[in-house]
């Protein structure tokens, strides 16, 4: 599991995508990350590099992050060709440096997709994901006037499956990793979460049609079942959710 072989501190060469703005050309630049403790997280390693850049009056590397515990979905970069790096089921902020070896070269790139414009360096604009939710990723109930929570029993299995899907943190790694930059895993997860619950049933048809239409309008690619998405998803969301999305779409479209 750990590659650093018990070594406490390692030195790395980083090649980081630097791009000042969305309509400017970017390129990889090389930095040294020296004396990196293997207990650090990947983002803490970047912090260390940035501190040095700032002190030397150079522009620090911009990257998104917030919770640093794998739940907010803010962080993410393609590390050595893998979205969120080499560890399975792990966000970038939860990736630790013990998974790297001394003198490794690490290539760090932003999520790439037509739907995600680069804002700066590793920071991309993922508002397309919000736009998809706005198109129908909700149950139309207003506050107040809802029945007692135990009025509708939900089979435990359905609730568990809904929870599996609802665990999506909206990070966008599935799209970054997909050879087609398709957003089907994200949309599949959201549609599944609501379609599996009786509360979501009344709007199921409308929801799936609207969300898929929005997804297409945003410029994401088409799913060809490459399964790269589920392989990189930090919440290990399964492509059975994509199948369910397809099913819901067929139901909504033809029935």
């Amino acid at each position, binding site marked *: 599991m750990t590659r650093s072989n018990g070594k406490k501190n390692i030195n790395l060469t980083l*090649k980081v*995508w630097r791009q000042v703005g969305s309509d400017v050309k970017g390129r*990889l630049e090389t930095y040294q990350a020296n004396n990196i403790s293997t207990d650090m997280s990947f983002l803490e390693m970047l912090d260390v590099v940035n501190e040095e850049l700032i002190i030397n009056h150079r522009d620090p590397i911009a990257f998104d992050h917030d919770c640093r515990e794998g739940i907010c979905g803010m962080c993410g970069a*393609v590390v*050595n*060709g*893998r*979205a969120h790096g080499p560890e399975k089921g792990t966000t970038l902020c939860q990736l630790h440096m013990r998974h790297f070896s001394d003198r490794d070269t690490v*290539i760090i*790139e932003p999520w*790439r*997709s*037509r*739907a995600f414009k680069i804002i700066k360096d590793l920071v991309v604009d993922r508002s397309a994901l919000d736009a998809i939710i706005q198109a129908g990723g909700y149950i139309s109930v207003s506050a107040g006037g809802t029945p007692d929570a135990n009025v509708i029993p939900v089979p435990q299995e359905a609730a568990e499956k809904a929870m599996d899907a609802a665990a999506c943190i909206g990070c966008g790694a599935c799209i970054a*990793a997909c*050879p*087609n*930059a*398709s957003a089907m895993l994200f949309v599949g997860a959201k549609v599944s979460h609501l379609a599996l619950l009786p509360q979501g049933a009344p709007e199921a048809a409308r929801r799936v049609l609207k969300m*898929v*239409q929005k*997804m*297409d309008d945003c*410029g*994401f*690619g*088409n*799913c*060809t*079942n*490459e*399964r*790269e*998405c*589920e*392989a*990189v998803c930090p919440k290990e969301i399964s*492509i*059975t959710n*994509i*199948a*369910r*999305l*397809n*099913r*819901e*779409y*067929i139901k909504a*479209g*033809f029935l």
Partner: protein
Amino acid sequence: MNWLLDIIESSIGKKLLMALTGLGFCVFLFGHLAGNLTIYGGKDAFNSYAEHLHSLGPILTVAEIGLLIFAMVHILSGIFLFWGNLKARPQRYVMKKSAGGRTIGSRTMPYTGFLVLLFVIFHLMNFHFVDKTNTTIFQIVQNAFSDPIYVGIYIAAMLVVGIHVSHGFWSAFQTLGANHPKYMPLIKGLSICFSLIVGMGFGFLPIYFLFML
């Protein structure tokens, strides 16, 4: 019919077309293979199968037109999908590695598909659009397969079809929404079996002709 257009134009709609026509081809391949196996029964068995087929007359024509439409749909939606996917990532990664999802089949779908198309044209020119007045289909086939180059092309083509179908088969089920932890392993197994059967079933025929007859 607007609703239908809306659906078909969507990414999932195009995939559905792909899946339905693709599965249609699979059924066709299966039938085609079953028929061709009569070759092992000898010249007469094969010729009589061909005659039977042709005696179906208008039904056969309808089936042929159907196949043609299927082909058009499969190819056109394939092109649209491929094009859409190219556009979806204008800037490529400097370094991109598979995280373990992709297979040879899935990686190469558009390319194997295109090769299959070339082959089908070649195949039809060889065996379909030929003058059959003074000869039997068996002879035509035998003629063709006496040439090692032809044999090579056919075997290679069958490999390509096998690869295409190895992903296409299970993928079509997934696209149609038929994925369940209980029976997906079965579909995946079938997918491999089917591609092996198709690849080997068709692939051995030319060898049979070359060496056995």
